[in-house]
C-alpha cells in the first residue's frame, strides 16, 4: 500500500497532499487531549504493523491495521497514520516523502469511512460487534487497495485491471486484518471498554 516515489504524476500527488492536509486538520481538531495517549499507541502499532510479514501462498503480506486505527480514533486516524507513514518513509524507505500525501489518504480515508459505518455497532451484542469489527478491518484494506488502483490509474492502464490486481494481492491481508480487528475489539470490550469510540455513559 506504499506507493514509491516517481510513480505518480504531479496532479495526483498534489491532490493527495491537499486531501491529507484537510483530513489531518480535521483530525487534529477532533483529537482532544484525553485521547493523545491512545493515538500515540495506535500510531506506534501502525508504524510497526507493516513489518509483520505473514507468508501467504507464494508471497508474503504485511498488516496495515488502518481499520482498527480508524475504528478507535475516527478522524484522528489521519494525523496518526501520517506520523507513522513519515517515520516509515524516513526510517524504512517504505513509500516516499513526495507520496506521503497520497499514501496517507489511501490508508486514512478508508479508516474514517469505516469508522462512520461500523462504530455504532461496536456497543451492540458481542456477535454483532464481532461481525462489524471484522467487516471494518477487511473493508478498510479493500477500500485502501481500491484507492491505490485509483491513484495508479493515471499512470497505468485501466482502472479495473489495476484495481483487480491490487485487491487480489490484498485479499489475504483483508481476512487477516478482519480477524485481528475483531479480536482487538472483543478484547477491548471486555478489558478496556473506555477505549472504544462513542462510549456514552448511561446512554447505551
Amino acid at each position, binding site marked *: 500500500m506504499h506507493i*514509491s516515489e516517481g510513480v505518480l504524476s504531479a496532479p495526483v500527488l498534489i491532490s493527495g497532499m491537499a486531501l491529507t492536509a484537510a483530513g489531518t486538520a480535521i483530525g487534529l481538531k477532533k483529537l482532544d487531549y484525553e485521547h493523545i495517549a491512545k493515538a500515540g499507541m495506535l500510531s506506534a502499532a501502525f508504524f510497526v504493523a507493516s*513489518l509483520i510479514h505473514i507468508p501467504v501462498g507464494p508471497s508474503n503480506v504485511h498488516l496495515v491495521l488502518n481499520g482498527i486505527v480508524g475504528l478507535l480514533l475516527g478522524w484522528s486516524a489521519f494525523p496518526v497514520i501520517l506520523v507513522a507513514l513519515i517515520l516509515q518513509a524516513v*526510517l524504512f524507505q517504505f513509500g516516499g516523502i513526495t507520496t506521503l500525501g497520497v499514501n496517507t489518504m489511501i490508508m486514512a480515508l478508508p479508516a474514517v469511512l469505516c469508522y462512520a459505518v461500523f462504530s455504532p455497532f461496536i456497543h451492540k451484542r458481542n456477535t454483532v460487534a464481532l461481525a462489524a469489527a471484522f467487516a471494518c478491518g477487511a473493508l478498510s484494506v479493500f477500500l485502501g487497495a481500491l484507492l491505490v488502483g485509483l491513484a495508479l490509474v493515471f499512470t497505468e492502464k485501466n482502472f479495473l485491471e489495476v484495481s483487480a*490486481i491490487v*485487491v487480489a494481492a490484498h485479499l489475504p491481508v483483508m481476512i487477516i486484518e478482519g480477524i485481528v480487528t475483531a479480536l482487538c475489539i472483543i478484547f477491548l470490550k471486555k478489558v478496556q471498554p473506555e477505549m472504544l469510540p462513542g462510549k456514552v455513559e448511561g446512554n447505551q
Partner: protein
Amino acid sequence: MKSKLKETVRTVFWIFAYTLLLAGNAHAHRVSVFAWVQGDTVHVESKFSGGKKVKGGRIVVTDSSGVELITGKTDNSGEFSFKIPRQTDLKIILEAGMGHRAEWTVPADDMESMAVEDQTPPTKPTAEREPEITEAVQNEQNVSMPDQVPAGPDLAEIEAVVEKVLDKKLKPVLKMLAEFGENGPTIRDIIGGIGYIIGLVGLAAYLRYRKRDVVNTTN
C-alpha cells in the same frame, strides 16, 4: 437471469484467481534494483524487500537526459542484461507494478569502451610496468632495444584480461555491497520510530499540562 449472475460471479472469481497468481510476487513495500558492468554488458538485478526476486518487472534504460534507450523485462530470477548502447550515464528504472519503482545509475566511468581504452594504456603507469618486465625476460639479448615497440598489443591484452578477471572477482563483492545497502529495517529503526511517537505524545501532554497550569495560576 440467474445463470447470468452465476456466470458473472464465476468470471469475477477467475479474474481474481488469475490476478492473484500474477500478483503473487508483486506484493511488498519496497523494491530495489542494482546493476554492474561486466565487459560490454550491464547486468541488472532486482528484488523486493525481503529478498523476493522481481519476476517480469519492466526495465527501462535511459541516458542522463531521459531518452529511452532500452526496455525489457526481468527474467524468473529477477535479472536482466543488456549490451551497453553507448558511453553515457545509464539510468536503469525498474517498474514492478502496483506503484513500485526503483532506480539505479551506472556512471559512464564504469564502462571502459574499447575505443577509449586503446588510447589510455600508455598513460597508465601501473599497467605499463608489468609488460615491461615480461618483455625484458623474453628478449634477453636485445637489452638495449626499445621496450615500448612490442609492448603495445600486449598491454591491451593484459589490460583486457585483468579487467575480465577483476570483473569476475569483484562481482560477489559488488553484490554483497548492494545487499548491504538494502537491508531491511533494523531494530534501531523500529525503536527509533516508536521513540519519536512517544516523544510526540509527550509533547502533546506537555502542551496540555502547561495550558492547565496557566489556567490554574490565573484563577
